[in-house]
């Protein structure tokens, strides 16, 4: 052999069939290309496996002269392939979300954020790749909170608590539950359409939307289960209600969909769920409305946070939001809006009985609910920078279907 090796590794009895390459690799990592590593060991197949392994990785093997120590198998001369593989590699941005790229490149998309990316590979296109469009600083916090507050529909709801309702009250509950299921269904579909388009660099947003979808899946489950708890039939679904949901799921712009769904729709839904929590005739309905309300509040928070951030940076955003409300209003102007069966069911639940005074009081409560929804929408619109009078006008154009 030509020169004294700079390093040595003793593999003992370990062969390449049981991971000897790890020791050789580790020892070679400390050498520069051309560096020499004396490899010794007692595995009988080592003299066959070591050169075969080296060949595939671009390392050269020198054989010992006679008279070298018995257990010296060969000297490995480190090749450059290991270094060449990482030539031109780059980090896919920072690991933590504190200094995110404003426009992460497509080549980062399928790597873990912050990972050292080998050059080459596919450029996966995620068209929602503008930080200002998708990101909100509160997203990691909201995700952590959302993950911590996932509840188990089986154990979080007192399904077996005894209660008995008059048939017409039970029917009103079934009707409201039917309405809630179809609205939650739309609330699941809307983020689902965007989650695969968001650049994974903004992974906390992707994670948050994924949990949001899981929230909606649970809501669909518990509302369906309550609807069928005492009977076998769901309530009615109006064409106008579905038309309203259609205009929501058809929105292909992330900011506008988020605005219509989270800020206006789910914002109104928080009030509705609070109303149902207060007026629920049974413990199961009361509990599931409370659980869903907690989740929906989080959805509204994120929608508001990322739109507030965007509105600060883009003065034209408000024009687009305004146009979206008008467009949706125009699309729905000839439809009936809220299913009349749902409205009547809400009145009955708030009335708690059939006496004319009860019905009158129930009617007042539903009107108060609609007023509260309107006030909430106006508050959120003002936070997004709309003048109060315009916020009032825009809120009035919101779908009568609530969501």
């Amino acid at each position, binding site marked *: 052999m030509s020169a004294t090796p700079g390093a040595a590794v003793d593999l003992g009895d370990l*062969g*390449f*069939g*049981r991971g000897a390459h790890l020791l050789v690799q580790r020892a070679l990592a400390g050498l520069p290309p051309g560096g020499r590593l004396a490899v010794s060991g007692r595995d*009988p*197949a080592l*003299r*066959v*496996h070591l*050169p*075969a*392994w080296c*060949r*595939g*990785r*671009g390392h050269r*093997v020198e054989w010992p002269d006679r008279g070298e120590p018995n257990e010296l198998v060969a000297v490995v001369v480190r*090749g*450059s*392939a290991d*270094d*060449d*593989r990482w*030539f*031109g590699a780059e980090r896919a941005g920072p690991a933590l979300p504190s200094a995110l790229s404003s426009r992460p490149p497509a080549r980062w998309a399928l790597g873990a954020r912050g990972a050292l990316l*080998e*050059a*080459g*590979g596919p450029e996966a296109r995620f068209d929602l790749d503008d930080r200002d469009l998708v990101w909100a600083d509160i997203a990691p916090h909201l995700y952590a909170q959302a993950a911590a507050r996932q509840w188990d529909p089986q154990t979080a709801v007192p399904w077996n608590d005894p209660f008995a309702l008059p048939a017409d009250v039970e029917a009103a509950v079934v009707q409201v539950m039917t309405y809630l299921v179809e609205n939650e269904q739309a609330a699941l579909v809307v983020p689902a359409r965007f989650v695969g388009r968001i650049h994974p660099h903004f992974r906390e947003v992707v994670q948050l939307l994924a949990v949001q979808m899981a929230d909606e899946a649970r809501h669909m489950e518990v509302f369906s289960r309550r609807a069928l708890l005492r009977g076998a039939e769901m309530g009615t679904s109006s064409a106008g209600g579905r038309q309203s949901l259609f205009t929501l799921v058809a929105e292909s712009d992330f900011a506008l969909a988020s605005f219509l769904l989270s800020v206006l729709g789910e914002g109104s839904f928080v009030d509705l769920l609070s109303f149902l929590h207060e007026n629920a005739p049974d413990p199961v309905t009361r509990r599931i409305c409370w659980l869903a309300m907690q989740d929906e509040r989080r959805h509204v928070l994120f929608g508001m946070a990322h739109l507030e951030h965007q509105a600060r940076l883009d003065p034209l955003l408000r024009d687009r939001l305004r146009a979206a409300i008008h467009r949706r209003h125009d699309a729905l102007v000839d439809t009936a809006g809220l299913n009349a069966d749902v409205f009547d069911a809400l009145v009955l639940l708030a009335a708690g009985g059939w006496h004319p005074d009860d019905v009158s009081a129930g009617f007042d409560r539903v009107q108060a609910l609609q007023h509260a929804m309107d006030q909430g929408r106006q508050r959120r619109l003002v936070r997004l920078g709309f003048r109060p009078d315009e916020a009032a006008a825009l809120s009035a154009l919101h779908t009568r279907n609530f969501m």
Partner: protein
Amino acid sequence: MPAPTVLMGAVAYDPKVVTIWEGFRTWLRGRGLDFDFVLYSHYERQVEDLLAGRIDAAWNSPLAWVRAERLAAVNGTAVRALTMRDTDQDLTSVVVVRADSPVHQIADLTGRVVAVGAVDSPQATLIPLDHLAAAGVAVDVRRFDVGVGLHGDHIGGERDAARALVAGEVDAACMIDANHLAFVQEGTLPPESTRIVAQTARYDHCNMTVRAPESDGVRLFGTLLLGMSYADPQVRPLLDLEGLTAWREGRTTGYDALADAVDTSGFYSLDGRVTATDYRP
């Protein structure tokens, strides 16, 4: 002036051959060589077409190289190994027995059943059987003819031979060193279940065979191949698929053992005709 051209032949032993050479074609064309390739279903026609001038270069197995050299000599022409992969140099084959076998040295294999790869596999059949014959060991050969005509490029015959060994159907099996390592690592051969009782001398494998003297296109082809860098992200995935980290200058010093084996087995005649009786590529 039109760009120099090269039409290369390659044997389609696996679908990845298309990916590899389409990728290389793009890379080579981007560097001023009007390169294209044709695929063959076996090496014999590829060699004949190279000698007939229908293709300019042949990505040849070692056995195909031996035949090309013989056919060229008969024609009064010559072929040259333009380049080869770094992984084509200094290979060995091994003869493996089960760990509990009574066979402890090569002579103990006399009269035993030895599994080999396909009839035309240099590494799993021709070279190791010649190694045994040279040691005076006469064995009962059990052949696993997978991918005949592909000159052993298809790993199936070697793997079947290894499986037959583990199943106790044969006393020994022949394979290339890297496949012994691969079979141990993938579990085809459970670790410590086998012993190596013989290892051949080092030999070389594939090369890019061209006719001498080379055209401008062929010379440029060689220069460009040698310039491919593992640091280049465009070609690295192709180099990984083709199983090399760098192209080397071709050398022809590593084919003597195979040429001997070809003569001993009567696979080709000295003038390059296919003479193996049970070989139907």
